[in-house]
């Protein structure tokens, strides 16, 4: 069977979780499990006015696609959607979405988890914090914990 083509998007607009799940499962009766992950912008104790997401156009999509295809192959997924936003995102708003579909639940859980772990460490996106005082603060630092999370899949 030909592996499914992942639905990969990088966009400034928001996304709707239910719309994306419906698109992935429409007309299918072979999918038994759908796991979704949504990453949101935290307010950081009400000190943050926005996160500014910068990306490497072209490479961001390509890298997300590469990760998604690895996950489809490794977990025999029946469908995968990954959407990442860029631009200014306010606390409470969506940043990233991953949906994995499979016949049984474990592969869908693992697939979504795998995609997020690799996306955080190798998809070219960067976050800059903007404070409530209107000033740009600093770039968010990469975390060792994210590298460890990725390395557990090796």
């Amino acid at each position, binding site marked *: 069977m030909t592996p499914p083509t992942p639905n990969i998007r990088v966009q400034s607009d928001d996304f709707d979780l239910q719309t994306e799940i419906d698109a992935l499962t429409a007309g299918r009766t072979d999918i038994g499990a759908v796991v979704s992950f949504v990453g949101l912008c935290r307010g950081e104790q009400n000190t943050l006015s926005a996160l500014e997401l910068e990306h490497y156009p072209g490479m961001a999509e390509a890298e997300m696609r590469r990760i998604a295809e690895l996950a489809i192959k490794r977990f025999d997924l029946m469908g995968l959607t990954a959407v990442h936003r860029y631009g200014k995102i306010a606390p409470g708003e969506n940043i*990233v979405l991953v949906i994995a579909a499979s016949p049984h639940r474990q592969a869908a859980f693992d697939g979504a988890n795998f995609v997020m772990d690799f*996306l*955080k460490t190798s998809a*070219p996106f*960067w976050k800059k914090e903007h404070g409530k005082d209107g000033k740009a603060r600093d770039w968010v630092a*990469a975390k060792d914990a994210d590298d460890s999370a990725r390395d557990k899949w090796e």
Partner: protein
Amino acid sequence: MVKLVYFAWVRERIDKPEEELDVPAHVVTAGDLLAYLKTLGDGYAAALEYPDVIRVAINQEHVEHDEPIAGAREIGIFPPMTGG
């Protein structure tokens, strides 16, 4: 000539998003390129002060610092990624 593209605080410190550059013949690898760029001015020196943390992509694919850059059309230079 190769197109260099910069992102996040690397872009801010170099103070431009991209540029076309003639790379001298002694610059063979991605790591050599970072060392060379560091000599081009204060902004470059600040951006590339700790070259070990800097990530490099050739033609939009991640590479290690020992990767040769010959034939590259576009080289991306950026800090560790913080998306997701």
